[in-house]
């Protein structure tokens, strides 16, 4: 399905990442946005609240982030594509019902414009230190999908992609951007609606009385049941069976959690999106995501100029982690380097997958500003010594 022309501001614009993210959601057909103001994410909500009235959307400023997350789940079950945005402290509050969204298998999009933490941290300055929280922040076992845009253009495109993944895999999808990308203003080209491919929700065609909210717990995606159509279905945050009925025992827990995990794991190849460059014959591979994947460019260019064989991987998706690819590369290269604005989060996954097969380096940074490319260059040099 193609985007609805009324939702698409075709043309070249000068937008910051947050506004672009809002436009991405609108182009994807988002019609319900529930949010709570928090720096540095608020421009997304502002953009949407301005744009929605004339295109049939409803923006609601909620009483807090707990309410925002729940409201988008409710609206999604009501048939609306829904999203919210926040930053660190609000992300913590949203974790509770992000888990409910995963458990109920509810499509929606949650944008975290990351700032420095912990606690109130650095409200106006960037960080990438919520990456492990994105992965594990809600209690229990599950898998997540998280995307990391590196520019306003990507903020627009990846928000559409996040909606598509959320509908395809029937789960909340995270956009883990940061203050730099959110407040960076660049040219954003919004294509005509016929060039914007949208994944629409699949509803069950099983007649009321015979349909359950889940088909099988086998890691495949069940079509959703529409509300108000006589299905009179039940869904619960409790461990449940395919009928959506609570079942409190270890067998049901096994089936339910394996399903949520396998839904992502079985389709990891479809979900994972890496942009690789100069990997063949590389001695060292630098990995990064979001703004850090741009910051590393001058360092890589300088190293290459000096004849160092350096490849790079920009992780467009951070979760699920590209285990297979990192394991393969670890057999071939001398070292792999993770550049991230935290003290080692996604790095832990890289190191785990390398499993001693090559060197693993972290170029960490506490946040507040981006890396100095010189630090990245120095680590690349060190790694090939």
């Amino acid at each position, binding site marked *: 399905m193609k985007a609805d022309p009324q939702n698409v501001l075709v043309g070249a614009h000068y937008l910051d990442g947050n506004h672009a993210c809002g436009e991405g959601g609108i182009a994807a057909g988002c019609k319900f946005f529930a949010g709570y103001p928090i720096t540095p994410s608020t421009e997304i909500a502002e953009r949407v609240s301005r744009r929605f009235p004339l295109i049939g959307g409803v923006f609601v400023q909620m009483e807090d982030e707990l309410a925002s997350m729940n*409201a988008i789940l409710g609206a999604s079950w009501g048939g609306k594509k829904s999203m919210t945005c926040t930053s660190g402290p609000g992300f913590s509050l949203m974790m509770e019902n992000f888990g409910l969204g995963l458990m109920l298998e509810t499509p929606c999009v949650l944008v975290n414009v990351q700032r420095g933490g912990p606690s109130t941290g650095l409200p106006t300055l960037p960080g990438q230190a919520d990456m492990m929280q994105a992965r594990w922040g809600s209690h229990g076992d599950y898998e997540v999908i998280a995307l990391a845009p590196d520019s306003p253009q990507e903020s627009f495109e990846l928000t559409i992609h996040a909606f598509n993944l959320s509908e395809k895999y029937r789960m909340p999808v995270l956009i883990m951007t940061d203050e730099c990308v959110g407040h960076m203003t660049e040219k954003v080209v919004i294509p005509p609606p016929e060039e914007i491919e949208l994944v629409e929700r699949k509803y069950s065609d099983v007649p009321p009385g015979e349909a359950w909210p889940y088909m099988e717990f086998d890691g495949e995606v069940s079509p959703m049941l529409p509300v108000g159509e006589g299905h009179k279905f039940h869904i619960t945050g409790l461990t449940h069976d395919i009928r959506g*009925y609570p079942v409190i025992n270890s067998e049901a827990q096994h089936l339910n959690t394996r399903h949520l995990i396998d839904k992502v794991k079985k389709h990891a190849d479809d979900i994972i999106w890496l942009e690789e460059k100069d990997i063949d014959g590389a001695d060292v591979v630098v990995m990064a995501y979001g703004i850090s994947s741009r910051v590393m460019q001058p360092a890589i260019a300088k190293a290459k100029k000096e004849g160092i064989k350096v490849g790079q991987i920009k992780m467009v998706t951070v979760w699920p982690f590209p285990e297979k690819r990192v394991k393969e590369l670890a057999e071939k290269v001398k070292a792999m380097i993770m550049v991230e604005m935290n003290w080692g989060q996604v790095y832990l996954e890289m190191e785990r997958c390398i499993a001693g097969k090559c060197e693993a380096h972290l170029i960490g940074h506490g946040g507040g500003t981006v890396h100095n490319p010189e630090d990245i260059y120095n680590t690349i040099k060190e790694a090939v010594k």
Partner: protein
Amino acid sequence: MSKKVALNKAPVEEKQHPMEKILRMDRIPHIWCSTCGIGTTVTALAMALDQLGLDLNKVAILSGIGCTGRVAGYLKLDSFHTTHGRSIPFAFGLHIARPDMKVIVFSGDGDLISIGGNHFIHTARRNADMTVICVNNFIYAMTGGQVAPTTPTTARSATSPYGCYEHPFNLPLLAASSGAVYVARWTALHIRRLANSIKEAIAKPGFSFVEVVAPCSTLYARLNKLGTGLDLMKFYHDNSVIKHGADPKEIDIDYQSQIIVGKFVDIDKPPYIECFNAGNKRVFGDKFKPYGGGNGSN
């Protein structure tokens, strides 16, 4: 090996449970203790829905966590068992997406008023068109009888073993002062009056609230040596005084004392979606198409 002997039994006539239309019979028996007040409250809701003659396909029920939180799971409606305290914002999103549906939140005092208190007051303030039914048993029952924001002063609980010394919330006052357009209180034995109030609440456009004072037979009654659940249910009923239109400020509930019941608030105020439409119409005029929900764009 023993042989199964077919007994010569008279054929039993298949009887339909009177509430089969609304109950998920495949989930019965329920988990509630005998003489718990939740059951009669569910009956009152069933009566109300029946009397209203609503298309049950267009009614959604949502609960949070706790004993009353299990209600959604037993009703044959589109039903949502959400997280602790969050049924109201979940219901709010559902209501916005599907304003054609009746949205009913059915949960307990701890769920709605303690952990969910912020959502309760703000959704009342917005006057979102939904009905909130709160079974108030003065205690956290599911977790074993701990003190709640509704526990009357001096009542004992698992975490106020020497008697509660906090001031409890007066729920109708909280609802009314937050903006609810319909507020009533009954006890779990006022089944007919309760059903009538629930009926009015569901029919009322805007945020309507019905408190049901109900016994917790297993914990509150036992910890306070108040007899059986049935004794307590009778006590609440017999010690209640019907005062329609009573000032919500005057209807605090003290420990084992008189309970003022009735309909306290029934006013007209534009609900959320009407305000949304009016606000946008004011600015955009005919360019704005009034929001009516439904799938996709309106």
